[in-house]
């Protein structure tokens, strides 16, 4: 599946408090969270964001808390995927579990600028930066994780395994 959108570019160590501040998490209102996505790092994000856009950042994206609301709010904002040089481990798991596409490519993450137009093929991991006319390849997922992704996330994966074992 090919996804196309513009890049919203950030640097290293974008933490989960920047993605969705804890002060908004005492409610369970997903649409309410969307208005505050990336608020403390980029106050114009919610306004500028167009459905299908990408978040691009360098190292350790999603560090900090275990809040699953971080990948949830990114997905609910209409972001097609996150491209980073590297991801913090809990964010990585959460994204896989809830089905937010994530791609690890230091080359693509470093070269991409705010507003660049990107085209991403999730099945091959190919990232094309149309503004720079460059192509990059994201690291493939290990087979185990691919199994979860292909089932559509951890819930469906577990449900199936549980039924098979019964």
């Amino acid at each position, binding site marked *: 599946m090919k996804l196309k959108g513009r890049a919203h570019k950030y640097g290293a*160590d974008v*933490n989960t*408090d*920047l993605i969705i*501040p*804890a*002060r908004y*998490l*005492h*409610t*369970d209102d997903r649409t309410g969270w969307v208005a505050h996505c990336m*608020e*403390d*790092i980029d106050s114009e994000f919610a306004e500028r964001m167009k459905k299908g856009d990408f978040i691009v950042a360098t*190292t*350790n994206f999603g*560090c*900090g*808390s*275990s*809040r*699953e*609301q971080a*990948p*949830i709010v990114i997905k609910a904002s209409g972001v097609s995927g996150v491209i980073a040089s*590297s991801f*913090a*481990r*809990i964010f990585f*798991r*959460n994204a896989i*579990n*809830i089905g937010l596409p994530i791609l690890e490519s230091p080359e693509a993450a470093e070269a991409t600028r705010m507003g660049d137009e990107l085209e991403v093929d999730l099945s091959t991991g190919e990232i094309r930066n149309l503004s720079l006319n460059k192509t990059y390849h994201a690291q493939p997922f*290990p087979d*185990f*994780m691919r199994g*979860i992704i292909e089932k559509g*996330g*951890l*819930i469906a994966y*577990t*449900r199936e395994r*549980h039924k098979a074992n019964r």
Partner: protein
Amino acid sequence: MNIAEKILAAHCGKKSVEPGEFVNVSVDLAFAQEGMTPLVVEAFRQLEIDRVFDPRKVVFMADHSCPNKDIPSAEQAKLQREFAREQGAVYYDVGRGGIEHVLIPEEGLALPGQVIVGADSHTCTSGALGAFATGMGATDIAVAMATGQVWMRVPPTLKFVYHGKLPKWVSGKDLILYTIGDIGVDGARYSAMEFAGEAMSELDMDGRFTMANMAIEAGAKVGLFQVDEKTRKYIADHGNRPFTAYAPDKDARYENVIEYDIETLEPQVALPSIPSNVKPVSRVGDVRVDQVVIGMCTNGRLDDLRAAAQLLKGRKVHKDVRCIIIPGTQRVYLDALQEGLVEAFIRAGAAVSTPTCGPCAGLHMGVLAAGERAVSTSNRNFVGRMGSPKSEVYLASPAVAAASAVLGRIGSPGEVVS
């Protein structure tokens, strides 16, 4: 094998495991605080599994926005209470428990050699007992509660060896801040940290909990201590349940071994707005503070309050400072009361609160306005963490925080007590 590998191997029915290997491990304990419980319950219902795998091994506690700060947080706490009752799970409501990562070990729920998962990144705190304790998101925790299993990728282990005797006023907090300052917030990303050396043997359990608590701040999956006499005494005093201790083999593999000589180390402070922005307290400069917070899952234990009381007893909190002290649990609160610590804090002009995570994440009980600055014994100083995105948080030990409360600026305990 090292400690992490031994625990994971024992929990997936294998003789040995290799870093990078994917394994399904059985879980000894799974827990969630009230703020994350709604998402956990939502995921649990979607699994179409009716009951938790073992109600004695599934724990809920109300700590983040509790006592309820407003109607939405009251609804979250209510949802949690009802789910815990429905499942017959272990449950700690307001007035009966406290901050999850202080509470879990104190209640004897965490044991050496266990695999523990919690819907909070600071679940790694119980690594101080030699448990493979790690934080995960709500979906993972729902799966753990429903099936008693989680998937893991076996992490490589980084060994940190601390040589020398702990200098005066240098605590576990200073050592872990120093370590994160050295390796960075992703210095142990995806890895297990194993803490060793003479200084770790000297460190009491409360200091070890503080160090393990902040392993996540270096990106680690877990921060592990080897079981020793201090661990055994702690377990004997807290539930006294049987356990298996795993020590690293002599030929255990480590991705890297990092050694520190700590004899000349000063108390450390993490400046805004990342926990790796660490300087010795003498090099922080003249930084005025509006608020001091002492407590939290990082430093809300009895030894932490004793350290704060050494500075605050018989002194006054600076007129321009609000000092908020939060014992981690009801038991810590009661012990502090009986030792006279609470009276010392109140006479010094500090506000003493019931256990809550409140100010650490900018939820309630000490939220900062724009332009305000706090010294906190918590674990994160990200932008907006304690309130306004235009406020600032400095991280420090209870002794440095209490000294700063007296001085009205960031300072060392030595400036207050000769």
